[in-house]
């Protein structure tokens, strides 16, 4: 679903930066990914998240995931072409990590919005009611996600997702860059909060709970509601 929007076919004309390799790859039918633009300025989420963090997070970290994902895909394409099964299997962890990083961060940028554009505004409509149903209140959901995010050891994500089979809301955590779907094949992510240290360190240092408390001021519930209404009409 959202994945389709992320994969773009690179042509020679529109890929000045990636150069020959990507262009050649597209001729063989390999679709490469690219770094999506942010729908707001780097500084637009201050003071909840600093402009310096947003710039590094987007231009360095997310870009690195995209670059390495594309590289791994190319190597996979080659290995598949040669029928090199051990190489294919060996590449799986790099694809899961870098591809997951790309998928997760693409969702994350849409999960955030400047306050002027509705960031932090509580959800209305069917998602708001579903939250009250499942968690008693938005506050309770926020407390639960903050607790699970703070308790996560190492690097990972904390998610609000919807089980599209059971039509239920769930709070889950995943480690490293595992996408939410690794916790359940019918789970669709609504809100993901990055609790890797790079997501907050320059501003909050080791005080992850403060980051989690403040990020809700810029969470884009409009996007989450759209996704929810699509899965649970």
């Amino acid at each position: 679903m959202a994945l389709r929007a992320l994969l773009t076919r690179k042509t020679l004309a529109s890929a000045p930066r990636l150069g020959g390799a990507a262009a050649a790859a597209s001729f063989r039918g390999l679709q490469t990914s690219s770094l999506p633009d942010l729908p707001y300025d780097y500084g637009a989420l201050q003071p909840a998240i600093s402009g310096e963090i947003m710039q590094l997070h987007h231009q360095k970290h997310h870009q690195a995931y995209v670059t390495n994902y594309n590289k791994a895909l190319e190597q996979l394409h080659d290995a598949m072409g040669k029928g090199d099964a051990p190489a294919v299997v060996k590449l799986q962890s790099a694809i899961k990590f870098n591809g997951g990083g790309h998928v997760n961060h693409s969702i994350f940028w849409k999960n955030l919005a400047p306050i002027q554009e509705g960031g932090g505004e509580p959800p209305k409509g069917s998602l708001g009611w579903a939250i009250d149903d499942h968690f008693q209140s938005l506050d309770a959901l926020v407390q639960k996600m903050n607790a699970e995010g703070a308790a996560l050891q190492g690097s990972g994500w904390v998610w609000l997702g919807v089980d599209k089979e059971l039509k239920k809301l769930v709070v889950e955590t995943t480690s490293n860059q595992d996408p939410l779907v690794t916790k359940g094949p019918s789970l669709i992510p609504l809100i993901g909060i990055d609790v890797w240290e790079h997501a907050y360190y320059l501003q909050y240092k080791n005080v992850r709970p403060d980051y989690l408390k403040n990020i809700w001021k810029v969470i884009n519930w409009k996007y989450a509601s759209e996704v929810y209404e699509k899965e649970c009409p």
Partner: protein
Amino acid sequence: MGSFSLHASCLAQPKLPWSNDCSQNLNSLKLPALQQRGPNFGSRKASKVLAFYGLKSPPYELDALEPYMSKRLMETHWGEHHHGYVEGLNKQLEKNDILYGYTLDELVKVTYNNGNPLPEFNNAAQVWNHDFFWESMQPGGGGMPELGLLQQIEKDFGSFTNFKEKFIEAALSLFGSGWVWLVLKRREKRLEVVKTSNAVNPIVWDDIPLISLDTWEHAYYQDYKNDRGKYVNAFMNHLVSWHVATVRIIRAEAFVNLGEPKIPVA
């Protein structure tokens, strides 16, 4: 001590005419703390032990590793993260009788629980890991090991350059948070480069680490931002302490037989 003497003086003073209750006297002394009578009030039991492990200082000043590891980063990494793990561990141990009395090494292995770690493992192991990490570095570090350690590295990796490449490659390919180690494997009796995730370390498998590198983002973000490669190179070229590694392998040879002693033939 103070509470005993006031109690005694309470008995000595004449009771207030409208009350048979001694505490009225104490109240009039306006000492709010005395009104809270904790479970040990009046008893001669020793107060509950609340701290089990302490925060060990690095064997150098916090600014000694500049410019490769800034004082500001050390203050946060040691003063907040490492300190936090110690406090967290002590708080967990407050509630747990079974884990009293272990040395830190023993506690790490016990709480690892053969791969099914107990909740105390993360804190215990991270305290151990950071103690070990500070000691694996020194001001004016880097360079190359000498003598026996160099020979062992050349034996197990082909050359020191080869080992260095392997170590750097491991640090760069570690996904997420974790540590990179140069380890003496006890059963295989050889040196290896090992990557571990989050808080895991080689002593849980009974191996003997010689040096470690923290690849959690908090270990380098303030100085190097996302550039883990620059951080790893600064570590290998300017921070790693081969002196400590040598001391550690000397000690390890008391437990692991690394080869026949060279007895000259008469």
